[in-house]
């Protein structure tokens, strides 16, 4: 019977919310069946899956989710190996009209598959662990960034990566910044300095009484690779009078979910949740600049882990632009500002879409004079974190991305714009464009004349005296015991120790003190 004639309208959902039983780490004991029963097989999820669109072999989200869970209940069926082809883009979640928790089912199935069926001695397992524990690599790499960048750029390295490790040789490793975000943050004076600046800004804005505080979840990428995004966030928030704290933190877990490494993800969450919950307790809201990080803290954590404070963290985590839109008159503030950033081609990350953040960057940024941004449509970039790095998925990843590349090239822009660091990598890889983060554009409009910003854009000389003065202050406060936060940071990141000598570790990399 054709449904064009007789639409199926027999599904009468109730309002009793589906609530899984969280019994991690025995992921297979999580009862996902009520979620599976919500599925009425409309296949909307299947038509949204970018992998199924290019790969004939992939059975699609409906099978990976509700069908697989039903099968598992009826017989002792193993999780199907094809689950490893799912990229965790979560587009199926965004699609399902019946609120079936698809990505939660996929995450759990992947965890079970890796746990029970993947050999812990296989190269695949170790390659996946290596990729998903990016922070570890980045941590080591960032200690000797120039050497690492050099070695990673060698042809020999890429041949080794591909042949031995199964990492796509076509990919270029993202460059490590010569100074991590945390190094910069510490050199700049950490929380103390931020509080001073925020107070000054509040005085200027006539909000002296207000208590405004955020905890920045920078994630791995903006710490090790694009600290300019984190710096932009700090400056923009301080401009609005927010004091910034940077709690101890580890990877958000996104790449680990995507690789079925739920134990690793759990370990990271065990650090992140209490730290962020403590910051919330101290009056801060949690802000992320990467939309997969915010997705993970908001949705995946409470779906997968039963940790004290996990719901607090979920409901108090925001994306960088989103928070300002809701808590400040962002558009009013931007009216009359100028930044010279025309020709932006904007791509919405899939994970941003699930949080209601599609369209936001364009709405906000185009109120700035001199900024032009065009949406390149709803195609998926195809890289999905570590997915596109794997030799066996590289082709699929590029086939998915093809549509986005074409849309970018057809748009007027020649600079890309996106919130997600891996989407940015793929955009750059496929088009050669330089990619910016919306916060960087915001920074250019709102704090163009901050000495820090000017320093970053002109590459001018360093104000040696100011710097030395500031550094002494920092050391001074550390010696006195410093703030709790500074202590926490010490435990977090050994790399931060470098700048505790008080000497600029690499010429010209440290910021002058805040003269404002």
């Amino acid at each position, binding site marked *: 019977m054709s449904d064009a004639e007789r639409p199926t309208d027999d599904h009468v959902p109730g309002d009793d919310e589906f609530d899984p039983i969280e019994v991690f780490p025995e992921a297979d004991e999580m009862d996902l069946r009520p979620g599976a029963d919500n599925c009425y097989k409309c296949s909307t999820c299947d038509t949204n899956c970018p992998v199924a669109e290019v790969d*004939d072999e992939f059975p699609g989200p409906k099978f990976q989710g509700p069908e697989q869970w039903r099968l598992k209940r009826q017989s002792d069926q193993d999780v199907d190996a094809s689950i490893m082809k799912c990229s965790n883009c979560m587009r199926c979640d965004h699609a399902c009209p019946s609120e079936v928790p698809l990505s939660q089912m996929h995450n759990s199935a992947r965890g079970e598959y890796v746990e029970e069926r993947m050999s812990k001695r296989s190269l695949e397992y170790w390659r996946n662990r290596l990729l998903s524990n990016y922070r570890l690599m980045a941590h080591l790499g960032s200690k000797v960034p120039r050497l690492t960048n050099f070695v990673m750029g060698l042809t020999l390295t890429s041949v080794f990566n591909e042949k031995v490790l199964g990492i796509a040789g076509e990919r270029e490793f993202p460059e490590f910044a010569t100074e991590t975000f945390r190094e910069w943050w510490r050199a700049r004076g950490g929380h103390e300095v931020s509080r001073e600046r925020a107070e000054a800004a509040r005085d200027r804005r006539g909000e002296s009484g207000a208590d405004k505080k955020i905890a920045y979840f920078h994630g791995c990428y903006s710490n090790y690779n694009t600290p300019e995004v984190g710096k932009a966030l700090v400056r923009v928030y301080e401009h609005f009078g927010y004091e910034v704290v940077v709690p101890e933190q580890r990877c958000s877990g996104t790449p680990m979910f995507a690789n079925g490494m739920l134990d690793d993800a759990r370990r990271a969450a065990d650090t992140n949740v209490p730290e962020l919950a403590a910051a919330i307790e101290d009056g801060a809201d949690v802000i992320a600049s990467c939309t997969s990080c915010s997705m993970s803290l908001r949705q995946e954590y409470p779906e997968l882990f039963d940790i004290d404070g996990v719901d607090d963290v979920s409901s108090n985590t925001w994306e960088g632009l989103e928070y300002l839109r809701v808590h400040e008159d962002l558009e009013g503030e931007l009216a009359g500002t100028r930044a010279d950033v025309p020709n932006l081609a904007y791509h919405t990350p899939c994970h941003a879409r699930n949080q*209601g953040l*599609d369209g936001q960057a364009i709405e906000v940024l185009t109120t700035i004079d001199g900024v032009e941004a065009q949406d390149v449509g709803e195609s998926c970039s195809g890289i999905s974190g570590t997915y596109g790095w794997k030799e066996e998925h590289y082709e699929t990843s590029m086939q998915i991305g093809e549509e986005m590349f074409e849309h970018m090239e057809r748009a007027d822009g020649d600079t890309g714009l996106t919130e997600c660091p891996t989407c940015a990598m793929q955009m750059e890889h496929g088009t050669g464009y330089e990619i910016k983060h919306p916060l960087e554009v915001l920074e250019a409009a709102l704090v163009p004349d901050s000495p820090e910003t000017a320093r970053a854009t002109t590459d001018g000389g360093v104000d040696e005296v100011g710097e030395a003065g500031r550094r002494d202050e920092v050391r001074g406060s550390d010696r006195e015991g410093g703030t709790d936060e500074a202590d926490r940071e010490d435990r977090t990141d050994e790399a931060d120790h470098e700048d505790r000598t008080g000497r600029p570790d690499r010429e010209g990399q440290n910021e002058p003190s805040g003269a404002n």
Partner: protein
Amino acid sequence: MAITDDVFVIGGGLAGATAALAAAERGVQVRLLSYKQSTLRHASGLIDVLGYAPDGQGPLADPFDALESLPVGHPYERVGGDSVREALLFFDAIAGDTYAGEHTDANALVPTSSGAIKPTARYPAGVAPGVASDPSDALLVGFETLPEFDAPLAAAHLEDTGAPFEARGVTLSFPGIRRDDAKVTRYAHLLDRDEAVDIGRGETFARAALAAIVRDQLEGESRVGFPPILGDDNHATVRRDLEERLGVDVFEVPSGPPSLPGMRLEDRLYDALEDAGVRVTTGVPVVDYEGVESGRSGSNSRRIEHVLVDRKGQDVPYRADEYVLATGGLVGKGVRSDRERVFEPIFDCHVEASPDRYDWFDGDAFGDHPFARFGVTVDRELRPLDAEGDLEFANLRAAGAVLSGYDFAAEKSGSGVSLATGFVAGDRAGSEVRG
């Protein structure tokens, strides 16, 4: 600080998108917010206005004749026949050359994938060469890996309906697809990109390979019908390419979910929304509202001040002057039910339903089910009414499947009602803002 616009449309289906576009025509700032994807993804892409009268009479040759005699409370009765016409004109302008059937009040008769013939008002351009009023013979092509469309069976059914042409069906194997349950998007992608496919004796391009196996089957028919998989972004190009290679007309036979023609229409609507400057937000639901007494006298004293959107854990306010509720019916989740009651979950607008849930269904599975008509009751301005017949809110209108008083599946009026009520609700909301 709430995010602020002039008109706020809740729901991104055909009704919501039309409402947002109509409001934007009034020169106001519109936001459309939709939780999940709409039923357009399952719908055939046909714009049915009215195929059968509520008493079952039909198929109707002219839906507009029958509009005049619809019962009080039917959405078309609420907005009136002229608005239905105006809404169709509005749609024609949006659809441009991607749709056919404009400039006529009459229903076209379109063969569907089961071989039935369906009366419809507007249909995709790719469906046009297949209409049943055309006397030329047709070859229907199905694929082994796409069991939803059984071409020989559909052809036999078509013959039974007394269609004025001969139809013949064949089942072939789609070049490049091996998997039994490959997704329709996979077929479309192969053809869109004209990818290289392995046909056993080397590689060739998908469109050429498909044309080659179909050409062998032609026995003088002057048109060929396929299931609706002929490309997505490049659908028009794929169809033209196949026509050139085959030397005959090529059409798609609309079918059930999931449906590429519905998705293509969705894309078209969302492109129009972008061009019109409508701000689109998706992936998060409206869960609640805060209201104020408007201070005006009379029964319509309550206004919605802002709605609350759940952005995964915390509610964020969105404010506007006027609101349109286009959240769909039981399938779209605009109307929900539990064991005790049927309700509209955001504003708790009144939904008329028997307190005994055994009255919600007819004993006969294909009978006249009251639940099919569940929804909010509205005045002629499409403003929801409470149980006493008073306005629920002065600044709320409702459109599409969330409305009561019609059974779209039985009447074949789904898209038509969404279009007409979406148009009226959006237009009124937009003009109200301007004062």
